């Protein structure tokens, strides 16, 4: 109860949208992904030829389409937050459903990509490039799934009328997490699929 009681004061002080706790989580996640990205970049610096060669085997089109899907899904989430700020709970829920569908498209494309690599016999131990490619993209993939679960809960609650223009912390909290997933992919796509 104490945490709930102190929450508005914390939010007032920070000005961050949504629950303050999600931001601690977001900053921690960014730190982990940041370390992962730098590990990839500096390991690549020692194996440039290997990384450049096997990067060519990736499906760049899938990566680009998934980037477009995620930023579009993020846009839908922004519209959901805008809707609830105007007290349009049902509209908020509809935007969230579109965002979740976007997440679903991302998941299907990513699974097809993983499946193609699996069929080629690629595993984590194939080489250093694939170790990074599979672990980085799978780690991000799990965050997409987690984001879809969070957005689904928020969408159901919005549809039930649990949020209003005055109280919609839950919508902003879910939105912040989803945008973090998008932000991380914005770095991951060029790093793993394009830069050489």
């Amino acid at each position, binding site marked *: 109860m104490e945490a709930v009681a102190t929450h508005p004061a914390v939010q007032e*002080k*920070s*000005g*961050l*949208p949504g629950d303050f706790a999600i*931001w601690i989580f977001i*900053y921690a996640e*960014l*730190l982990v992904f*940041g370390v992962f*990205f*730098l590990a990839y*970049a*500096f390991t*690549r*610096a020692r194996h440039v030829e290997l990384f450049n060669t096997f990067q060519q085997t990736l499906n*760049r*089109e899938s*990566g*680009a389409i998934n*980037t*477009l899907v995620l*930023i*579009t899904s*993020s*846009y839908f*989430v*922004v*519209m959901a*937050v*805008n809707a609830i700020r*105007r007290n349009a709970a049902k509209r908020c829920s509809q935007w969230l459903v579109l965002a979740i569908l976007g997440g679903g498209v991302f998941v299907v494309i990513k699974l097809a990509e993983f499946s193609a690599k699996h069929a080629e016999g690629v595993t984590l131990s194939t080489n250093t490039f694939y170790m990074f490619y599979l672990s980085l993209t799978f780690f991000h993939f799990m965050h997409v799934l987690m984001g879809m679960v969070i957005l689904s809960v928020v969408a159901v609650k919005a549809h039930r009328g649990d949020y209003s223009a005055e109280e919609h912390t839950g919508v*902003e909290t879910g*939105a*912040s997490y989803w*945008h*973090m997933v*998008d*932000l991380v992919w*914005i*770095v991951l*796509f*060029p*790093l793993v*699929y*394009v*830069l*050489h």
Partner: protein
Amino acid sequence: MDKAGYRALRVWLALVVLTLVTYAAGRAGLGGRLVISGLLLSVLIKGQMIADVFMGLKGVRSPWRWMVTGWLLVVVTLIGVAFS
């Protein structure tokens, strides 16, 4: 659509264009220091737009907004160093 909606739409369009430029550079097989610098700059721009407009951090007090900007700057700069 209200003002915030139009701003989000403009950011979405900018993100789409920058993503297509990144993809085109990869498809064309472009590399080298200049291309890498340009693509990393576009990552910075895209990331800051997502933080400011999508995440809604533009009007947020320090240090919260700057922690995301700082993360982007450090990560992108060090990736640039590793690729140079």
